[in-house]
């Protein structure tokens, strides 16, 4: 790691450390809370530390409860990524990029270093959620037929947070103008597709799916950028 990179990392850490405190607490606590709530909802206690309190609960109820409660984790990942991305550029914007201009590095390299620094900082909440997931699943007795997936869950969290982080970083890296260009470009693309697809169908006999479907499946379906959000976020699964 170069000295410039170390400096950028240190600066970024200073900018985002207080923001990380509540995020880390949520990352450690939420997995445990979700598993405990799910087991309680399923009508039993799976506490490994208190075998006397253990009672049989049905896997479908547990899975159903986890499916409902686990919807919170994609949001947590998105909030984490967005917060770190915005914190990365907030200081630069506030000081009109004077510090960055004073550095003897080109802008593209500076942006890349900031991107790497943010990605490294993302490892802190990722570590926190792994600890939370491990504590949540190690403390319960998993019913037969089900397994705990703390590592896969953590990997999914990291990927989702990284994706939102990179998206927000790319938008926040520029100016309002760039953000507007990207936003208007996306809207125009959808509009052009909305007009262009019927024209293609009427004049060339080419059938394509509607723009909304295209956008939805492109974003959330394989191999879209947000596919990772659509998978299973269950800590305990078959």
């Amino acid at each position, binding site marked *: 790691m170069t000295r410039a990179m170390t400096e950028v990392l240190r600066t970024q850490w200073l900018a985002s450390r207080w923001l990380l405190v509540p995020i880390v607490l949520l990352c450690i606590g939420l997995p445990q809370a979700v598993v405990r709530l799910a087991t309680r909802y399923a009508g039993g206690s799976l506490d490994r530390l208190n075998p006397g309190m253990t009672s049989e609960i*049905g*896997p*479908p*109820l547990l*899975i159903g409860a986890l499916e409902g409660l686990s919807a919170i984790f994609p949001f947590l990942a998105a909030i984490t990524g967005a917060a770190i991305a915005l914190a990365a550029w907030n200081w630069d914007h506030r000081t*009109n*990029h004077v510090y*960055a*201009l004073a550095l003897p590095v080109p*802008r*593209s390299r500076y*942006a*890349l270093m900031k*991107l790497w620094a943010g990605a490294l900082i993302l490892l802190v909440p990722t570590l926190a959620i792994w600890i939370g997931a491990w504590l949540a699943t190690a403390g319960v007795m998993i019913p*037969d*037929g*089900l397994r705990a*997936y703390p*590592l*896969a869950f953590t*990997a*999914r969290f990291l*990927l989702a947070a*990284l*994706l939102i982080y*990179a*998206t927000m*970083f*790319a938008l926040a*890296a*520029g*100016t309002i*103008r*760039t953000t507007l260009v990207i936003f208007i470009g996306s809207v125009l693309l959808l509009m052009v597709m909305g007009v262009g697809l*019927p024209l293609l*169908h*009427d004049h060339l*006999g080419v*059938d394509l*799916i509607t723009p909304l*479907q*295209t956008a939805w*499946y*492109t974003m959330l*379906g*394989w*191999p*879209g*950028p947000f*596919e*990772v959000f659509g*998978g*299973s976020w269950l800590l305990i*699964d*078959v």
Partner: protein
Amino acid sequence: MQHPHEPHIGREWSHCTRPQPCQTHRCSAIIAIAVLLSLGAIPDLSAQMQAAREAPAAREALGARIDSLAAEHKTYIREIHVRDSLRAEYNARLRTDTMLIGPFLLVSHTPASDDVVAAIRDEWAARTAMVGPAVSRLDGVVIGLNVGTHVIRGLAGTKVYDFSVWGANGRADYRRAAERVITSALTDALPEDMRNWLDGGSLGTRDAHRWAYRHLATSNLPQAQRCFAREPQSCAAALMGTHASGVSAHTRSSLLQHALDLGGDGSYARLIEDASDASARLANAAGRPINDVVLSWRATIQDARPNVNASVARAGFWTLIWLAGLALLAMRSTRWRLG
């Protein structure tokens, strides 16, 4: 000869005892009817008299109304012609193409793409040997290709199997759609008792065993749980019972598909041959006792356990590619703006 004062027994007005009162009643009735008729006619007469007084004005009004109606009629006829010509043009543009693929008639308003035809052909080819001589049960099955704005809903009372694609994955989606319509048609061609046993399920698709594993692993039913915990008798009892036993349609579909896979060529034809119940049909299709079928099926679905880690790995690969693209965007798309 009857005496004039004798009562008129057996005749009308029999209650009259004398001729004079009867005549009086008859006259009264005739007068009453005449009065009533004249009262009813008075308004008509007065209306005719009024119309006669106003005849020239009424004629003119009626003539004007007739003229206006004629104009409206002309407009209506013109609109009818426009509508008919538009419909003719629409029909001329809206071609209806048909294509025979195996026993299926593919109907579409626009020429079917090569990928769609290839998907249906491939999916049918994968099942041709399994269906065997029972292919005649599929004759006349219509697949409606609905991938545009012109939707084929039904053709003269014939059931149309809807080939719709919602994804954006091209050939993979076409294959899934083709698999869906072909398995639906094969399911509908099953005997009624077999369809009842399936309880809304259909012939298995690619994901049937994976879904069966999930349903069995998360079942609340004691029989299903024992089946999952390696008790073959419980498997047979749970699967071969009625839908009240609670085993999901996905699980039954998976077992049916497994029996067909075991049976190989002509297994579908053997499945629909006469048999006492669903278990006998499955045994016929597989060509072995039902307990063997269930045991091997159980081993198959154990192998089909969903791999959670693999799905994360696949998502990770594409996420990294998108990250690289976003990093390039962050590096090159903007410039520093001061002030």
